[in-house]
């Protein structure tokens, strides 16, 4: 890892697998009566959210607190120009308060990469979602959720089986909806393909990049790009899917004239009751939230399948563990991975000495 987490692309398969294996440990921490370890005691994590967000901010804050880090919140709505202060000034002010990591979320693509260039050595920048570009921790939580759905931990315990490597090999995953404007789609594509899945992107042409094939072929390595297909019909691919990854369809896209009408979109791309009937019995559904019931997914489908086939709650809960893994890896005890016993020894957090990371 470069010292930052800007995209999953830069991690590669090994880097992603390492973080997902580490996530197992933090899922276990989250199940304890006191779900807290002192791994980042004395460290400060700033959340720099230039764009409104509830769930991502909560997930990062919860992750940082469970690692005993101090959390510093910064919110700034609208553009930096309007405030007369440049992005760089804003970041350097926060950095001067003494931080070890900053989670950056911005409506403009590339801002975390820009801030990473301005960061002092030893300050890790985590991309909390930038424009349409990337949302790497969402990609990690989604990949983790699917991996652990198809390959559950033995006895609910991590690490029992050393051959238990993160993988989605052989899985067929559809990503459905507004792909062109979706940072989640881009990071999910990176995570899923690195783990060996084959992907089909399902959307009308107006919700895909203008030349989708060229985009995929220039972006991903040749062997990976071959495992990504593009379709304009959910019905054409429904029968073959292990996972239906729904994206949020924002209302403003409807009014931008990118689709003809909501009912028309639902008829072609929504997970209706009829389509749910046609799914393989073991197929599951993901959604990054917030979900528009009645658009991306029919309300009844959600109710009927919620118990074990709509993985939305798992995604959220794993989101905390995945972010703990990232924070631990970036500003924790360097390269040494904690094993379950180490973490167990450290709990309860309050009185234990901080380990390596401090």
């Amino acid at each position: 890892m470069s010292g930052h987490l800007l995209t999953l692309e830069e991690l590669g398969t090994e880097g992603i697998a390492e973080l997902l294996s580490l996530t197992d440990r933090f899922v276990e921490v989250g199940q304890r009566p006191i779900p807290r370890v002192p791994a980042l005691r004395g460290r400060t994590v700033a959340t720099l959210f230039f764009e409104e967000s509830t769930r991502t901010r909560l997930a990062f804050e919860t992750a940082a607190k469970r690692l005993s880090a101090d959390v510093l919140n910064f919110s700034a709505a609208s553009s930096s120009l309007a405030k007369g202060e440049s992005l760089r000034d804003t970041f350097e002010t926060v950095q001067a308060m003494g931080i070890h990591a900053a989670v950056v979320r911005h409506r403009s693509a590339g801002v975390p990469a820009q801030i990473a260039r301005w960061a002092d050595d030893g300050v890790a920048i985590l991309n909390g979602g930038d424009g349409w570009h990337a949302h790497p921790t969402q990609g990690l939580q989604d990949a983790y959720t699917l991996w652990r759905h198809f390959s559950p931990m033995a006895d609910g315990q991590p690490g029992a089986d050393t051959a238990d490597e993160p993988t989605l090999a052989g899985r067929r995953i559809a990503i459905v909806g507004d792909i062109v404007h979706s940072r989640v789609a881009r990071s999910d594509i990176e995570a899923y393909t690195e783990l060996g899945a084959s992907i089909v992107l399902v959307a009308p042409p107006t919700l895909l990049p203008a030349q989708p094939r060229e985009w995929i072929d220039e972006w991903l390595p040749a062997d990976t790009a071959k495992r990504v297909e593009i379709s304009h019909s959910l019905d054409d691919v429904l029968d073959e899917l292990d996972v239906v990854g729904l994206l949020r369809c924002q209302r403003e896209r409807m009014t931008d004239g990118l689709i003809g009408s909501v009912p028309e979109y639902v008829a072609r791309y929504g997970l209706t009751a009829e389509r749910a009937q046609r799914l393989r019995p073991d197929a599951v559904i993901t959604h990054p939230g917030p979900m528009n019931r009645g658009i991306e997914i029919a309300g009844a489908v959600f109710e009927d399948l919620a118990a074990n086939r709509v993985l939305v709650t798992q995604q959220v809960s794993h989101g905390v563990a995945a972010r703990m893994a990232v924070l631990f890896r970036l500003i924790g005890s360097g390269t040494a991975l904690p094993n379950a016993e180490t973490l167990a020894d450290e709990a309860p957090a309050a009185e234990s000495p901080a380990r390596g990371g401090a």
Partner: protein
Amino acid sequence: MAEQLPNAGEPLVLAGGEIVERTGRRHADITVRDGRIIAVDPPGTSRNGSAHVLDAAGCVVASGLVDLFSRLGEPGNEEAETVATATAAAALGGFTAVLAQPDTDPPLDRLGQLAELRRNAAGGCCAVIAAATITAERAGKRLSPMAELADAGVGWFTDVGPLADTGLLRRALQYAGPLGGTVSVRPATAHLGGTAAMAEGAVSARMGLAGQPAASEELAASAAIGVARLTGGRLHLDRISAARTVELVRAAKAEGIDVSASVAAEHLLFIDADADGYDTLMRAEPPYRTSQDRAALIAGVNDRTIDAVVSGHSPVPPQAKDLPFDEAPPGVAALETCAALVLGHPDISVETALDALAWRPAELAGATHLGGGAIEPGQPANLVVLDLHRPWTLAERGSVSMARNTPHRRREMSALVTATVVAGQAVVVDGALRSTAGTVAAPAAGNSR
């Protein structure tokens, strides 16, 4: 190089250089006095004890460069650049005249603004040619007082960007015809991503940025050419970026339509993938496109379809480049590096570079008395001395422009402007500005010739 440079009335000799003109190359000494070339002699014959000599041995001597696109900062953007600093940068870059873009605040759309520019330019280091807007207040609604402005010497009209209303473009070309004016538009179609930060393609899709498809430029260029055909007016297509646009210009010229085109020097170097790291210095107007587009632009310069290479000088205050990529203003501070980039370009000959940087733009701007003219006795003395084998970097040499938005700070360039003579005055000597603004009384605007 001369330690002492001549006072008024004393001759200056540019000795030992190789003069490069359209008509060919020759070794000769050039003697300049009182703003004019008074003699062009075989090498060595002009040197005598009393004359001040600039040693140009081993260098190319050419008529002064003329930039068809510079933003000078004033009025409205003095935080980034002033006419004094921009003309100093221009002279250091080998330009003896620059066409000041009228997208100032307020825009140059009336005689009062023209007079202000001329006052500001009077003490500049090189000549400033005024351009005026096509439309009043640059609002794209109705024509500016083009005839009044033309009477006052303005020959170039541009809103510095697209003109969405094709009917208005038609009227502008019709109206400008008898005034001898050129109407310049940068072709882009607003409804086809005309303001997006990147070219549309695989790179913009990966970076998660909105894109301008090449068709945005092609359609607007095609419409403008169609209107030029309809009216017979003089059309200039400003800073084109796409391969298909080059083809359109080539075809229009073959058909006999009165159209010219320019490209910014950076577009001969960079492509969209160079913006990969969200470096705001790589945000350009228009955006950089693919390597195929770049190759077509270079080919267009080489077969002279593209008449002029321009600096596109667009100074911004330093903090403006510390904004998100899609909020940061596009463009580079380019006057000091433009000529070096083009003259050092591996695929462009010296003659082609000089035609695109001096001879042709001087003709287009009606400004051959300010640069790009013939090197003959009796002609105004606007000259540049170029050492084509003198490595330098901007970081080491330093900069006189106030603006710092350049991606070339550490780029090693091979061609150095060693001297610039503006209206007979050696403004740049030995690659350095000899004096700050104030020593050169520059002709203010394009008196047509």
